[in-house]
């Protein structure tokens, strides 16, 4: 064991020696080491978060054919720090009639619901906070805290727009949580484990055939869609319909409290990009490169997370906002039935083909998904055609009547 193959363990052992040398008890020392590790990880994430502000602004600028921040520092790299200082020293206004305690808890809860996701984020087989055996559900539980923070912010602000925005956002989030949970069952079935390391290990191999995206492309797609809705980003950013509810649930927030909501959203997007990569795109596996060392694996995961984040941004800045009734109908009448069908077919095929060779297994999984997608598109086409005929029929008969 050396610094290259297992850096965290080596550092922990070294710290352990120092602490026990000081006369600390073994248990207390290990808690202290955990705490140091956590603080380092959280600070790293927050710095990453600051850089995400820059990435987001640069990328959106490119999408909109602009330059983006380019004045403060090289390529505008210092810009987000300037923003933070500005947010930090800005006067904080608590609106009249607000429920002070809840109003102040909400932004903290919002950002910590994202931060705690990193406790189970597997950067490498040996660089992971803790490999919970209920990792997948932990993801959902953290999302539940996020939902709670939004409703708290909306309610405590004592503002009609905030409350309406929060309600819309929460209705959308809880609706899209269903397809997300159902789709999360699919990697669980393949890996036979809810732990993030188990799921990553299930996708090992030099070639990416073992990545679950090839076993369940529809699952990966549904996860992406519901993750975007969960994040409350465009095209599902109902709470920020500027012409209707202005800024939604964080309308009354200013200064650093607003800053945390904003930072939390960006970090959430990045984290979900990361989990998308872990659950469906092989995690730290990438053409055998992960065998070089844990730091390489960590770089691979972060790179994949960045790609996932970029896809989420790409969708955000390409599509227009969807009306709330369309959005909920799309979820309940399309995504929920589809995700359950995919789950059932996957479970059944997984058992029937248990003893089949790997190639057959992967191919039949892939083509079952293609067939489901084909049938879905055919049903949609028939329905829209009959709907159009109904409308056109009415129109033509109306013309005759006049």
């Amino acid at each position, binding site marked *: 064991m050396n610094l290259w193959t297992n850096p965290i363990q080596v550092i922990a052992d070294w710290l352990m020696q120092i602490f026990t040398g000081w006369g600390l008890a073994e248990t207390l020392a290990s808690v202290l080491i955990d705490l140091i590790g956590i603080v380092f990880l959280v600070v790293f994430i927050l710095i990453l978060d600051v850089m995400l502000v820059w990435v987001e602004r640069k990328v959106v600028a490119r999408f909109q054919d602009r330059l983006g921040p380019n004045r403060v520092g090289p390529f505008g790299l210092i810009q987000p720090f300037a923003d933070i200082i500005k947010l930090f020293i800005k006067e904080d206004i608590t609106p009249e009639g607000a429920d002070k305690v809840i109003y102040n808890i909400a*932004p903290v809860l919002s950002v910590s619901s994202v*931060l705690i996701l990193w406790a189970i984020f597997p950067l490498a087989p040996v660089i992971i906070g803790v490999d919970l055996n209920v990792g997948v559900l932990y993801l959902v539980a953290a999302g539940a805290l996020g939902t709670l923070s939004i409703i708290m912010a909306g309610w405590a602000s004592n503002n009609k727009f905030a409350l309406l925005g929060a309600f819309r956002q929460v209705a959308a989030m809880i609706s899209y949580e269903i397809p997300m949970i159902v789709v999360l069952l699919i990697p669980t079935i393949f890996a036979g484990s809810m732990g993030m390391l188990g799921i990553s290990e299930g996708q090992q191999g030099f070639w990416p055939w073992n990545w679950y995206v090839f076993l369940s492309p529809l699952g990966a797609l549904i996860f992406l869609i519901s993750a975007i809705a969960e994040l409350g980003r465009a095209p599902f950013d109902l709470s920020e319909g500027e012409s209707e509810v202005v800024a939604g649930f964080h309308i009354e927030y200013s200064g650093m409290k607003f800053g945390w909501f904003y930072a939390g959203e960006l970090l959430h997007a990045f984290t979900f990009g990361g989990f998308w990569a872990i659950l469906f795109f092989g995690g730290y596996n990438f053409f055998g490169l992960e065998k070089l060392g844990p730091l390489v694996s960590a770089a691979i995961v972060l790179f994949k997370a960045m790609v996932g984040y970029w896809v989420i941004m790409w969708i955000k800045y390409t599509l227009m906002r969807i009306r709330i009734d369309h959005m909920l109908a799309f979820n309940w009448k399309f995504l929920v039935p589809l995700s359950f069908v995919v789950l059932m077919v996957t479970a059944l095929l997984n058992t029937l083909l248990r003893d089949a060779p790997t190639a057959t297994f992967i191919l039949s999984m892939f083509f079952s998904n293609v067939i489901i997608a084909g049938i879905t598109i055919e049903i949609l086409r028939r329905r829209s055609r009959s709907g159009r005929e109904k409308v056109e029929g009415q129109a033509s008969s109306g013309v005759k009547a006049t």
Partner: protein
Amino acid sequence: MQNEWLYIGLFLIVGVALPAASLIMAAIITPKKSNPIKNSTYECGMETVGDSWVQFKAQYYIFGLVFLIFDVETVFLFPWAVTLNKLPLFAVIEGIVFILILLAGFTYIWRKDALEWA
């Protein structure tokens, strides 16, 4: 097992403490010059009328309700999914029957137009 959750607990504490600390620091150094206009509720420059508790559609509750039922259902499915690789076929069928029963109820409320927003 114990240590895993201790770690999560520590992470939660740090994850709450750092943002909270930053808010407290910000609260100390920011200027405080409040006045009634500044503190008034934002409503596009208009005077606020009435209570912020506007009447909500009952449909919000219906979606919350359907969500709750499906949420609990998936909780039952997670242990099933974890053991699925080692199970015989009939156990998989049991799980699928479980889903189908729920989808039958779902179809019923769909037919009854309970999932319409308007």
